């Protein structure tokens, strides 16, 4: 049963559009799946490998801009962006890794944060290439949501399987060893730099794919959105923190909760503008009371409820 659970969930998700949901609900579901994918990517680097990145917007934005620029400059379908973004994001993440992976702890946090911001500002100022703050507008392939849904679902499922296989393999243990104690891992003969680089590259490529999908789905990108610190980098972290760090299902749970919360709160009149306040409060509460997220601290939650019932 437990082995079949991912397949059952995938099957249920695959037949979901047949129920005939309206486009708004489909939109919310697509976003949730996209954030799941991004969260899965962040979880590999941040959760399993212990390298907390505050700059995943860099990869997200790069993927998004790869797709957008292909259309904008060459008239090539942005769907090719999904393919082209892989080598581009991989190369950039390796270059980035040369700099940031030498750093540890807070230095790493700050360096990744800075790189995300540098890319945003570069993108805003390189007007001939990126159209600056005006952003890039492309025509969407389909009007209805269902095709987009299946594409992102397939991508997310692939990412889920890939990360699951990596974590179950020898690499997964190396990653966790690096997180728990880098020096000890090094002394046991693990090439920590190599494995951190692998984690970063895989994580970056998956995030980039999510970004490229974002362009094709939304049809409009600008640096303030796709390279945003608050709306992308921190939201990815929140998805994983709320769901559960270094858990298989954490990103999915977190993404559903965060997207729903965002949509529900924003739709409440007057209170809508406060959604980031509530996000912040949620983050603080989660860190203090459920530091391993809803999935990671599930037994804790269950105990509380049991006590309440008794």
């Amino acid at each position, binding site marked *: 049963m437990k082995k079949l659970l991912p397949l059952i969930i995938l099957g249920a998700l695959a037949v979901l559009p047949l129920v005939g949901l309206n486009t708004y609900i489909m939109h919310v579901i697509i976003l949730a799946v996209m954030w799941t994918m991004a969260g899965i990517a962040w979880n590999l680097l941040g959760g399993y490998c*212990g390298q907390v990145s505050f700059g995943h917007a860099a990869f997200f934005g790069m993927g998004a801009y790869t797709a957008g620029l292909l259309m904008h400059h060459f008239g090539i379908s942005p769907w090719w962006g999904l393919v082209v973004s892989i080598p581009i994001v991989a190369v950039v993440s390796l270059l980035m890794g040369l700099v940031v992976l030498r750093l540890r702890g807070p230095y790493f946090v700050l360096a990744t944060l800075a790189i995300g911001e540098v890319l945003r500002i570069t993108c*805003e100022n390189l007007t001939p290439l990126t159209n600056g703050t005006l952003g890039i507008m492309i025509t969407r392939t389909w009007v209805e949501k269902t095709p987009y849904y299946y594409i992102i679902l397939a991508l997310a499922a692939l990412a889920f399987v890939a990360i699951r296989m990596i974590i179950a393999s020898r690499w997964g243990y190396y990653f966790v060893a690096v997180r728990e104690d880098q020096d000890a891992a090094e002394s046991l003969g693990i090439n920590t730099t190599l494995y951190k680089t692998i984690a970063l590259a895989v994580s970056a490529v998956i995030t980039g794919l999510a970004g490229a999908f974002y362009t094709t789905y939304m049809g409009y990108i600008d640096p303030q959105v796709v390279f945003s*610190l*608050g709306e992308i980098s921190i939201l990815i972290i929140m998805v994983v923190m709320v769901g559960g760090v270094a858990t298989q299902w954490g990103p999915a749970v977190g993404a559903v909760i965060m997207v729903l919360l965002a949509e529900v709160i924003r739709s409440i009149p007057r209170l809508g503008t406060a959604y980031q306040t509530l996000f912040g409060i949620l983050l603080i509460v989660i860190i203090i009371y459920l530091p391993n997220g809803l999935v990671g601290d599930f037994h804790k939650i269950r105990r509380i409820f049991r006590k309440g019932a008794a």
Partner: protein
Amino acid sequence: MWVQVEVFMQTLVAGILLGGLYALIGIGMTLILGVMKIINLTHGQLMMVAMYIAFWMFELFHIDPYLSLFIAPPLLFVLGVGLQKYLVNPVLKVESILPHNQVILTVGIGLVLQNLATIFFTSDYRSTPVDYASSAWYLSDLWAGTPVEISLSLPWTVSFCLSVSITLLLWFFLAKTDTGKSIRATAQDKDAAMLMGVNVSRMQVITFGLGAALVACAGCLFLPIYYLFPALGSQFTLIAFVITILGGMGSTIGAILGGLILGVFESMTATYVGMGWAPVGRFAIFVAALVFLPGGVASLLKSKKLTK
């Protein structure tokens, strides 16, 4: 030729004036970092809160932003103490997989502060219409035969001088008073300080408050020369940690030098590369410092035996 020298000198002086204010922001951050060993990613947001306090003081009671130096920093001290006591301290005790929970926590606090400011004060850009805002003085006023003419904005100069005096006061506090010495001891070695009878947890609370009060001072000094909007906080948080890295984590002198370097560098990028690129220059220097000089300016000073 002379024109180019003049432009260069003007840029340099503007950079130093800016750097003096940056230093004040950096010192607050570096104090917290030194004592608490956590990065306060809500530093800029605290400054934003202080600026709004000063702004409303001016708007409602016509209190000059410089006089708000006596109002905003004490309030921010209280806010900082509260944050440290009720949010940061509990998190330091929680066991979790990720070691950087406190950093993420400060991000959350920053998010809340910024968003609350947007709700209460709207995201309009505001500035304080002080009547001396655009007055300036010239180098030729002081030195008639000067070969290069430099003009200096009056509020910039006043802010710079006040910033220097606040820094001197802080130095006096840290070097001469008992509390200051205890703070420095806690930063150097927490356990040893505790064994020597220093109330470490109290010092941590005071330090957080002090850091917040310092950045509040910077906010009051920035208000007459800068505009104000809720998202300004994140920008200054970034500046604060660039300075901290540049100067060397936890080093006060490093923070001052780092602030000056950053100010000059930004002002140079703005003049010679382009206004919009100034932030990129900021991060370029940051990444360069991380890679080539991970200990910051402080480590250079130490290796050259310039400080004890």
